[in-house]
């Protein structure tokens, strides 16, 4: 099961991901991240503390978020990556794109 919630802090869009971001969940995730693409003036924080699993389809969505945000000179931060999920990011060459915090 996958769940995505979003909120806005000052100058920053915050997303909270719960569950497995796999092919099944990718459609829902893409819809949940739509606010990012409507904005050009803020950073993005994605809270992955409760993200259990991610596949390449999920990574592609995050790559698009990164590209959009970077083109507006803002930052994307990933928070609380688990070891398993972090490994997937590392192997794919994705981790170096994002700021991370625990």
């Amino acid at each position, binding site marked *: 099961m996958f769940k995505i919630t979003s909120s806005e802090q000052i100058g920053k869009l915050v997303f909270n991901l719960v569950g497995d971001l796999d*092919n*099944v969940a990718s459609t829902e995730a893409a819809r949940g991240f739509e606010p990012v693409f409507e904005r050009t003036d803020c950073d993005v924080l994605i809270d992955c503390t409760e993200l*259990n*699993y991610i596949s*390449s389809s999920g990574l592609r969505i995050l790559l698009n978020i990164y590209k959009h945000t970077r083109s507006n000179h803002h930052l994307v931060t990933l928070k609380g990556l688990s070891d398993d999920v972090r490994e997937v990011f590392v192997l*794919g*060459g994705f981790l170096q*794109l994002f700021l991370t915090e625990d």
Partner: protein
Amino acid sequence: MVERCKLRKQIKKQLEVLNFQFFCVSLSPDNLCDMLKSLSARLTFRIMAVVLVMMVVIAGVVNYTVREYMLDEAKERYLGFLLENRQEIRRRLSDVYVAAENNVDDIERDIDNPDRMFDHMERIVRQNRPIVCCALLFKHDYYPSKGKVFVPCARRDSTDRLVVSRIDSTYNSYFYGEWFQNQLKADHGCWTKPYFESQLFAGDEEPRLLTTYTVPIHDHDGHPVALLCADMSLEWLRGKMVEDIRSINNHYEKGCRHQSYFFIIDKDGNYVVHPNKELMLTPFDEKVGKAMSAHRGTCKTEVDGVKSWLYYRSIKFVKWTMVIVAPEDALLANARGLYIIILLVMILGLVVIYFICRRLIKGIADPVAMQKANLEHELKIANGIQMAMLPKTLNSPSGAVDLYAALTPARDVGGDLYDFFLRDNRLFFCIGDVSGKGVPAALMMAVVRAMFRSETRRADSAAAIVDTMNRSICEESTAGYFVTMFVGILDLTTGHLDYCNAGHEQPIVTGQPLEVILNLPVGALSDWNYEGQQTQLQPGDILFLYTDGLSEAKNTAGELFGRKHVKDLATEHTTDSPQQLVELMETEVHRYVDDAEQSDDITLLAIRWQSQGGSHSSRLSSTSHLSMSASMDDIGALEPFVTQAAQQAGLDDRETKRLRLAVEEAVANVINHGQATAITLLASVEDNQLVLTVDDDGLPFDPTADSTTDFTVPADQRPPGGLGIMYLHKMTDGLDYQRVDGHNVLRIIKTIHKK
């Protein structure tokens, strides 16, 4: 139902082709052969006739040209010869004539002194070699002191001695007759007709042929009183001519029956010179004489019954005509030799052309035979492709079954078939033999195999499969072909074998013949009710199936290999692997057949069932299998399946997630790029490995091939794609890809680490 109709139509179409081929092949009996034979014979005949006519024309032209050339050459040669001899004769004649004329004045000065005449005669003969005799014939009673007749004379005798004498007595009244008077009256000298000299002079010698130049001698008053006679021998001329002609004969006319010869005639038509002495001074053939109209030239006439060419030239001064008679045979002797050589070469060429024609025409004029050969060739290729498409080994994910098959085709395209594949952890297999051989059998085999594949998709029992196939073939086929078949369905989990034997050879299970009901072959009778049978295999049992190509293989003595032999071999080698058993049978039958020609296809199929024992596999059993459509809608079923299989195999949470990622990427790849319709997943444990097999019917794609993308480059700076495949590699302990029977089969291997 709609699909079934479609299949029927397809089969019907194939069978129509089959029937047509059968018709074509049966249409080539003797009458067709005769037709072709006569066609090729007619063509050959026509070509040869044209070539023959051409050769006759060429031969004619060559003959004419060579003949004309030879005649021209002969004409040149003989006219040259005549010219040369004419010069010689004229030279000699003029020597005599000049000598005589020059002495006339001397003699006339001494005319009053008869005794001086002897001196003159002596001098003339001595100084002029060509003159053999010189005499002065005085009128009767010119010198009263010398008597009535006075003929002073000087001559060379046979020993070349000069003799001066009076030869009064030899000159009879004839010489002093009319001829003498006429010569005296003439105011110039002239040549007499040639004549043989008097026997008195010749003595014992043969009389010589002579001609005489006569000049009148006048007294001081200018009255003619005597004739100066200078004799010239013509013997030299005869001798020279005979020799010259002989050399020509030897050179150009060797071995001819009639050879050229040469003669001279005088103005009255008598032979003056002739190689045959007896003919001298006899008249010449008048008819031939008339043919020579001009004073020189060439004419063709018949001389003594021999067709000959005459070359002639007159000598003005003496009014002689030199003639060369050249028989045509002799002239064309060389031409004939040349002509015969040309003719022989032509005949040889004709023979060569004939054989070439026959060969070429045989090749060309047999279009039907050639088409048939082509068709067979193409079908053989098609058959080869068909063979190549037959599965060779089974990639059993669970290792529950080991299988090996081999088909050795006979020289002609044949009709053996076998097939097997896995579905729902069950092994479907069949072996069959289409009656007859050749093109129809090969086509039939393709049809039957296609039917087997399609029928097994819906039918669940062997008898039902055979039943449906039988009805389809009976309805559609009128060719009367039938197929002996054995169809089996082996449950890999339980070892339960459901089978149906349609008139096929009895299979052998671990050395014991499998009990079979005697059903009719497929395609024999449409309403035959096929009865299936069941048996339970024990773990390790080996099932051996074969076609009659094996049991009925003949050695050079014509003896059969035999079922007993097959059974004995199978009994002796029950522990062999399927491959070993099949190869053993092949070796044995080849050794048995030896040099004899393999008359039928030999198809062998061996299947060993292993119990799916062991602690890991027992935990997997029925839940180890997942069928899904190749759509993202179904992908949700993946996670529970993989997770369950991984947990049952004892993988920890981290490895489970890693496996899940690998499988998800593999399946997503098939769905997104493979154009597949169905995906089957199978999980099994082999030793300490969990193997997840992803089987799809999509485009061929080998994910184990090396990727060129460098994933150490940040994701935004490299080309898209390949990410899923990268995870497939990184998250697993082994990958194995095979393209089997139109399916991609990817084995994803995960090592199980014991806790």
